[in-house]
Structure formats: structure tokens, C-alpha cells
């Protein structure tokens, strides 16, 4: 009698454990699936952590790259400056914002969907994007959108 009741309880317990393990595995699978397919950061929707002029930003990088990276690397920033150069092609949209150097400046690489058709060379603009670093040949800010 006793052994029959005992083995019944054992089977129920084993079933519960197996169910628990299945649920865990399923959960793990779901998490892995979502991690694997996670989305890229949507820079346009993020708030910029600071505002800076293109002159100051380029100045920081051409003076001391390490210090500049400590301040700006991987941050979403708003950069204001005068457009010294514009590239407006299907897969390549770039606004170069002036610095104290007469050739190099802040390279604002625009989001592909951003319309910069109305931006003229010489205009003052503010862009928001992610700073990926730079040196005395240019500061790179990617995923840029125009802001007011």
C-alpha cells in the first residue's frame, strides 16, 4: 500500500520538475530569441546628453583625443555649427560643420532617411547624433538628425 502511494507522489513530483524545466527552457529560448533579434539604438528618439559647438568639439579632439573621448565618446550630443560642406546622395548624407581648422571639422553623418536638401553651405545648423570619436582629421558623429 505504502509503496504505491509513494511512487504516485514521486511521479507527480517528477512531472512538476519536468514541467518547471520545460518552462525554464522555453523562457530561456524566448529571451535568447529576443536578444538575438534586438533592435539597434534609435538615436533619433534619444535625448542628447549635452550641447556643444562644432568649433569646441573639434577643438577638444584635436587638442587631446583621450580627454575628448572621456567626455564625448558614445554619447548622444547636439552639435551646432556652420555647414562648410555637404554631401547629399542616396546612401551617403554628410554635413561637415566648421571648426577653427580651415579644412577639417565635425563630420555629421546623417541618417539615410533625413532630408538635407534644403540645407545650404554656410547655414547654421544643429544636429543630434552619436559621437563615435575622432582626431585632428575630423570628429565623427553618426545617425544624425536635424534639430531646431
Amino acid at each position, binding site marked *: 500500500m505504502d509503496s504505491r502511494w509513494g511512487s504516485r507522489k514521486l511521479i507527480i513530483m517528477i512531472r512538476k520538475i519536468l514541467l518547471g524545466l520545460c518552462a525554464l527552457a522555453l523562457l530561456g529560448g524566448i529571451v535568447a530569441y529576443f536578444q538575438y533579434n534586438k533592435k539597434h539604438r534609435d538615436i533619433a528618439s534619444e535625448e542628447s546628453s549635452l550641447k556643444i559647438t562644432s568649433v569646441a568639439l573639434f577643438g577638444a579632439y584635436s587638442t587631446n583625443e583621450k580627454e575628448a573621448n572621456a567626455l564625448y565618446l558614445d554619447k548622444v550630443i547636439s552639435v551646432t555649427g556652420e555647414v562648410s560642406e555637404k*554631401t547629399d546622395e542616396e546612401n551617403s548624407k554628410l554635413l561637415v560643420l566648421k571648426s577653427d581648422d580651415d*579644412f577639417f571639422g565635425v563630420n555629421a553623418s546623417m541618417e539615410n532617411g533625413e532630408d538635407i536638401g534644403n540645407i545650404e553651405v554656410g547655414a547654421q545648423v544643429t544636429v543630434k547624433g552619436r559621437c*563615435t*570619436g575622432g582626431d585632428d582629421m*575630423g570628429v*565623427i558623429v*553618426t545617425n544624425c538628425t536635424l534639430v531646431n
Partner: protein
Amino acid sequence: MMKKLILIAILAMAHLGLMAQKYFTRTGEISFFSSTSVEDIEAHNKTVTAVFDAASGAIQFSVTMKAFHFEKALMEEHFNENYVESDEFPKSTFKGTIKDVESINFKKDGEYNSEVVGKLTIHGVTKEVSTMATFTVKDGKVMGIAKIQVNPEDYKIEIPGVVREKIAKELEVTMKMDFVEKK
């Protein structure tokens, strides 16, 4: 009279040498591709700054690692955080020479090949590299294309055993730059 002419000729040639053009791009493209039985890994960076001197052949480029775009965000994260450690080493650079720059006629449309040698720095490690590059001159613009095999281990890029299977021993890195004259 003859001496004066020769002097003027020499000065004119020297002046032309000084006037030799520099070419640049701010939207140079570097891509790499790795194929294994498990998965294909592909990334593109279209914000490379590159400059070369048509007279001396000196060429250099700078690329910010965080601007490499992968289709899978998770792959991009692993690349930045675990492999190239872009917080610590945000930039890779190349500084070298276009060996046969003299054979490139920048005023005549055409395709020119030359070996490019120099120092490539990735992940804080510098190595001497060399590769063949093709320079296509058209309407005063120069398109430079080169491919190079890069072994991550050469640059102390550690890829954990489990993931190592997924990545080919050497990555094929392609560089494509559309240079224009620097005025």
C-alpha cells in the same frame, strides 16, 4: 641666358612639385566579411577619413570603430564590447605609402595598380601590412579599392572559443574610397 632659362625651368618644376595635389575623402568605406559554416558576419563603416599626397604617395586613414554597422545589433554589441573593445581603442588607423604613385597619371582617366605598404593599428596593436590597390582615375576624381586579410589574433583581439567557430580565421577587409582633390 641659358643659365637663366635652366634656373626658371628648375624653379617651375619645383613649384609644380609643391603644388602637387592632395586627395581626400570623409566618406570612405571599410567593410569586413567573415563566412563560416554557421553564420555570415558582415559590417560596414562609411565614415572613414582618408588623405593621400599625389606627389609623395603618402596615404593615411582614420576609422572610428563604433561606426561599424552590423545588421544584428547583438553582433555589433559583441564586436564593440568584447572583441575590439572600442571604449578603450575607439580608433583604428593606417599610415603608409602608395609605392608606385609615380606611375599613376592623375590627369588621365584609367585604372592604375600599386602596392600600398604601411602601419595598420587596430585595438592598440600596430602591424606592418601591404596589399595591392587599384586606383581608378575619372574626371579628376580617384577611386581607390583594396582588400586585405586580417587575422584578429594579430591584433590581440580575443574571440572566445565557443564563438571562434563562427568566425573565419581571417577576415576579409575591403576598402573603397572615393577621393576628390583637396582645394
